[in-house]
């Protein structure tokens, strides 16, 4: 088994209690982190500590527990802001997940800035969460949707920018890294091109923020959405980052407690950002634990994590190339590509592939991975996806390949 990493992966794996188990009599090889990552002890302990020791609502109580909860909650916001290079923690809005963050922008910013005939530019490789909210906005406002297509390698066809990213486009919404193809898109360049025609750019960072160093200032984007549970944090917590001036120009999304200044019988004034966008009691313990997850990842080092995954990816691309009848969707080399590999296997349906691999203790995903338009473009109803993270090792990729050979033999 080749050595792939600058950090001690074997020692790091021990920090993840869930990875210590057997599935169907075999050690668990978890290759579905693009869907949701596993959690280190440090994050699980942090979440438990909140519920055991200082659980109380934030921003209201004058008693000790509430003070402590508020302090930890706001400190977590600061950790997340630093993790993505934000100017200020006031630019970070807590949401449930990436999906809610994008919906927030579609309602609050879209409702105020998008009108009949305006265009919203998406790409063919977007997750449904970065398509459907814009379809709904278009239906409400009379705006039009357009899509940047792909080239033969599974990358954006950038030639289309000249004709599609033009005056009249209000927003370019693009994924930083495709959850299916692994393709990493040139966000900094796209941000420049978008701004040149007066458009804003929203980046779906669900697959990038957990896996590579991300600096929202260096990227020059306007909005960045991401989820905690894909980056060693809990479910139910995610974030929207936006430039402060943009956030301040936006009307609220959901109404309720916490997001107000003064409430009269007929109308209300709204709180400063980011509180304006955080109606109701938030996922307090989960937010604090997400801050802890940022500490955990930063301690390993995002560049080191990225290098580790690149090495796994290179190994996996080589290893899978030897499996007869296997076709990878998307880029075939590691350049500008992350650690998610979706593929089809001749004569074996993805559900059957995943079930056979499960029998070997290898957890992969089968289906359309919330990207029906992309799968339609590739003319396949579904695919199987293996995705890697901080805790995966080359041996697990060997087991994946062996399981795939077994599936092929069974069906051919």
């Amino acid at each position, binding site marked *: 088994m080749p050595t792939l990493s600058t950090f001690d992966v074997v020692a790091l794996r021990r920090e993840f209690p869930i990875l210590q188990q057997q599935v169907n009599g075999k050690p668990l090889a978890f290759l579905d982190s693009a869907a949701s990552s596993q959690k280190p002890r440090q994050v699980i302990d942090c979440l438990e500590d909140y519920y055991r020791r200082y659980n109380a609502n934030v921003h209201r109580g004058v008693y000790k527990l509430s003070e402590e909860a508020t302090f930890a909650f706001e400190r977590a916001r600061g950790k997340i802001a630093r993790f993505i290079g934000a100017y200020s923690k006031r630019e970070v809005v807590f949401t449930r997940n990436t999906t809610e963050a994008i919906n927030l922008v579609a309602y609050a910013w879209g409702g105020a800035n998008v009108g009949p005939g305006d265009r919203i530019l998406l790409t063919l490789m977007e997750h449904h969460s970065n398509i459907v909210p814009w379809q709904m906005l278009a239906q409400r406002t009379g705006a039009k949707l357009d899509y940047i297509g792909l080239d033969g390698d599974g990358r954006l066809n950038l030639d289309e920018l000249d004709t599609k990213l033009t005056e009249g486009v209000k927003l370019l919404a693009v994924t930083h890294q495709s959850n299916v193809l692994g393709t990493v898109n040139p966000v900094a360049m796209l941000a420049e091109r978008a701004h040149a025609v007066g458009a804003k750019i929203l980046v779906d960072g669900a697959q990038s923020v957990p896996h590579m160093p991300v600096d929202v200032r260096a990227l020059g984007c306007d909005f960045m959405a991401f989820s905690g549970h894909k980056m060693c944090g809990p479910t139910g917590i995610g974030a929207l980052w936006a430039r402060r001036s943009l956030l301040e120009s936006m009307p609220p999304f959901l109404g309720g407690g916490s997001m107000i200044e003064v409430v009269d019988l007929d109308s209300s004034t709204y709180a400063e950002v980011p509180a304006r966008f955080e109606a109701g009691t938030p996922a307090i313990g989960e937010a604090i634990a997400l801050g802890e997850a940022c500490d955990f990842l930063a301690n390993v080092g995002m560049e080191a994590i990225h290098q580790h995954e690149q090495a796994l990816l290179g190994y996996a691309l080589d290893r899978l190339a030897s499996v007869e009848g296997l076709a990878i969707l998307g880029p075939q080399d590691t350049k500008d590509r992350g650690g998610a590999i979706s593929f089809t296997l001749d004569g074996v*349906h993805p*559900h*059957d592939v995943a079930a056979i691999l499960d029998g070997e203790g290898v957890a992969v995903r089968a289906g*359309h991975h919330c990207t*029906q338009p992309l799968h339609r473009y590739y003319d396949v*109803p*579904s695919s199987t996806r293996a995705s890697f993270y901080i805790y995966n090792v080359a041996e697990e990729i060997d087991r994946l390949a062996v399981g795939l050979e077994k599936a092929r033999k069974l*069906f051919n």
Partner: protein
Amino acid sequence: MDDMYREQILEHSKYPHNFGTLDAPSVSHEEHNPLCGDRVRMDIQIADGVITDVRFSGKGCAISQASASLLTDELIGMPVEQAKVYSKDDLLELIGIPLGKNPVRLKCALLSLKALKVGLYGVGHIHDDDDD
């Protein structure tokens, strides 16, 4: 897992019985599984209250294809009233593999039955008891 891919399932998925379409079916209905994009269409010929012929078409995993294949064998010659009350337990017994409580694989196994039921009862009149 090895129990799931028994010989009978593999045979029916590789060489499905009654695969194809009918020219002028009495009833035709297609069902989709939004989880995986699979689809199964059932074409049914009925004469004097009896199912005289059935064809299924579509794409799916081995479980859904084998299940549809086995179901069509069972249906040919069956009175429509009996087909209407053919239950998911009947079909699961026919398939005879341990799907357990995995709701994803149950959806695969029962997709053809859903197409049959919705087709026979007419859309909007199906009592959907498949969604556990």
